[in-house]
């Protein structure tokens, strides 16, 4: 093997981490993103020149790194981030996909979009202001979406004399709050995005901090889950039947494993029909394998020629989800048109789309203090609320807490195809401890958020 081949091998066997950033512009999010990209040498000369040119023509002296990610005319004109921007960078240890999400409350839906596929969320706080409403909102969205890892980046430490007590107090308050929402892992890091402290390089100003830099943490955080703890799930996307002379009897069920692992020889159940069979082969994009796991795209073949089509779910015979037509969920409303009780919608779950009706909207969540507003009757853009939906056909639905992939769904307007809401089946937060703020805001003793 030549040195060059080794180099190539190393580059292509690194893992991929998808993460999202949250925080308002004033917290220094653009500076942090700019610093990560710049210090990992992911901003190339012509991009930087374009930003410098555009900054100068706007009368700014220093290059405005936000122009790197604000790719739309309207964003540059208004100087704000409207929509999620995806950025790509790499270190020798890992490749990264960064969903750079807007911080304003009216763009909560975009943070939900960015967080839905993220394995990690970075929540930015200004060290001078500490935990504010916006911070709690970001923590709540990360908890709702069950982002496995949350980083609290306490920024602008240079403006508080790099004082440990300032950081410790903010980290403690945030950790207590986020843990009460069920965020499984919180890592607090004191940084100065502007000066570069603890972003890529360790800070010489904060000897008292012994943890990783932001980049070091991003490089080492685990990206795969304990497969034995996951219920194996395989939504059938497409049935492959060549019917050619070479493959006259081939019948394979193509899909992406949503959770867990499947093995040749395993007894499986097909839902919603409930028929059972055995896995005889797994074709992993051209290679025959004995075991495959999430999120691999594979083709599964079964021993029995049973009726299976797109929208069905294959699960282990001894670990299949319950089938239901009554869905209780937390949703984030993402459309400008409202969602109302009695509305007829389409529900898209894994590879299955069914007719449904909104039976009830029991409550709406106030993200600022996590209090609930009972029976709002409707949800409007950026609202988060509980809904009860009745479907025309049964669904093999998991709780979102058990599987982000098979516990999530969309509600779609059948008239014009608009994506109305993002749904998460089951209870909202992993922990049901009642934050003090919420207790003060509502007399209702029952905590359903």
């Amino acid at each position, binding site marked *: 093997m030549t040195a060059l081949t080794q180099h190539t091998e190393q580059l292509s066997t690194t893992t991929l981490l998808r993460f999202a950033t949250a925080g308002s512009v004033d917290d220094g999010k653009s500076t942090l993103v700019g610093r990560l990209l710049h210090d990992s040498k992911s901003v190339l000369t012509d991009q930087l020149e374009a930003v410098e040119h555009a900054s100068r023509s706007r009368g700014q002296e220093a290059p405005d790194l936000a122009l790197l990610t604000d790719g739309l005319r309207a964003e540059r004109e208004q100087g704000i981030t409207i929509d999620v921007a995806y950025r790509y960078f790499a270190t020798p240890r890992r490749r990264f996909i960064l969903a750079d999400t807007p911080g304003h409350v009216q763009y909560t839906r975009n943070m939900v979009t960015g967080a839905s596929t993220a394995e990690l969320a970075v929540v930015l706080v200004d060290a001078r202001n500490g935990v504010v409403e916006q911070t709690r909102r970001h923590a709540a969205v990360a908890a709702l979406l069950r982002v496995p890892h949350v980083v609290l980046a306490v920024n602008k430490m240079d403006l508080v004399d790099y004082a440990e007590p300032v950081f410790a107090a903010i980290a403690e308050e945030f950790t207590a709050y986020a843990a009460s929402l069920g965020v499984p892992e919180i890592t607090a890091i004191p940084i100065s995005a502007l000066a570069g402290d603890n972003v890529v390089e360790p800070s010489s100003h904060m000897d008292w901090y012994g943890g990783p830099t932001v980049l070091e943490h991003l490089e080492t955080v685990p990206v795969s889950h304990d497969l034995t703890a996951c219920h194996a799930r395989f939504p059938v996307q497409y049935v492959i039947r060549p019917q050619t002379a070479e493959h006259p009897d081939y019948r394979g069920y193509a899909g992406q494993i949503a959770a867990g692992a499947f093995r040749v020889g395993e007894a499986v159940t097909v839902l919603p029909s409930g028929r059972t069979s055995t896995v005889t082969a797994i074709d992993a994009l051209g290679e025959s394998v004995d075991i495959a796991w999430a999120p691999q795209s594979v083709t599964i073949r079964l021993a029995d020629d049973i009726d299976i089509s797109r929208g069905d779910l294959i699960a282990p015979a001894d670990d299949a989800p319950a089938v239901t037509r009554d869905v209780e969920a937390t949703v984030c409303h993402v459309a400008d048109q409202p969602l109302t009780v009695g509305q007829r919608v389409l529900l*898209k779950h894994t590879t299955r789309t069914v007719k449904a009706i909104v039976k009830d909207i029991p409550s709406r969540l106030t993200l600022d203090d996590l209090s609930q507003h009972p029976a709002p009757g409707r949800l409007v853009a950026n609202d988060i609320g509980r809904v009860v939906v009745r479907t025309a056909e049964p669904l093999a639905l998991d709780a979102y807490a058990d599987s982000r992939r098979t516990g999530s769904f969309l509600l779609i307007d059948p008239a014009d*195809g608009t994506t109305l809401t993002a749904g998460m089946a089951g209870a909202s937060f992993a922990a049901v401890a009642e934050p003090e703020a919420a207790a003060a805001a509502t007399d209702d003793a029952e905590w359903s958020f």
Partner: protein
Amino acid sequence: MTTVATVSEGTDNPYALSHLDSLESEAVHIFREVAGEFERPVILFSGGKDSIVMLHLALKAFAPAPVPFTLLHVDTGHNFPEVLEYRDRTVARHGLRLHVASVQEYIDAGKLRERPDGTRNPLQTVPLTEAIQQHRFDAVFGGGRRDEEKARAKERVFSLRDEFSQWDPRRQRPELWQLYNGRHAPGEHVRVFPISNWTELDVWQYIAREGIELPEIYFAHEREVFNRSGMWLTAGDWGGPKEGEQVETRQVRYRTVGDMSCTGAVDSDATTLDAVITEIAASRLTERGATRADDKMSEAAMEDRKREGYF
């Protein structure tokens, strides 16, 4: 300390997918979603590396059955002969069906007018959108990547286009989890970008890993070129060089393949895949910044073209 960290030390989890496997799995999932939900999908195929990777992914996604899509090439009339030869050979080898929409035919028929700068890239929009209407394609796969350009960075994997093929960035559907919403009214269609999340380096590494054949012009070779606005363009019948532009022979290669009038070559001695990957990994210029004149027209050139129906 108030920090709660449970980072696993050192142990490499055997169930973590490599980044190329993750990207491949995601792209295959997208191809299969379209096959499952649309009536008349088509893959835009130019013979360039991104569309070659897309076709390779589609072949893997449906194997051992054939790819259930046709191909469409918008031929500017100024394409590299080596690339057209590659295109036709590939289509024949896989027994696929190729539609060609010709910019030259539109110009000859008086339906399009040549631009003063000779660039034909923006002229592709009309033949493309008319071909989509004529064949009633409802899903159109493109090889666009979000790392290419800042307006592309904002586009969804499933991008709804109206009956005029227009993109409205303010009215995009939020795209959540892996739940792609492809619903559209008759006359509308969806542009689908399975390799949205790939970078230029990912594409090259994947080509190397899978042993995919490419047109020769991606590798360093001696070529007659001339300099226009800082870019090395291939001399030819399409309209170059003009008076005052000197033709010289240089060792170059192409990072992108497009219309000859606006796609520049880069000086290079990379004659193998390994050498190309090393060169890309070390380059301080983006793919489009180095070789595309049409993106330099204005700060929002790509956004404006996409609004009109460009891919």
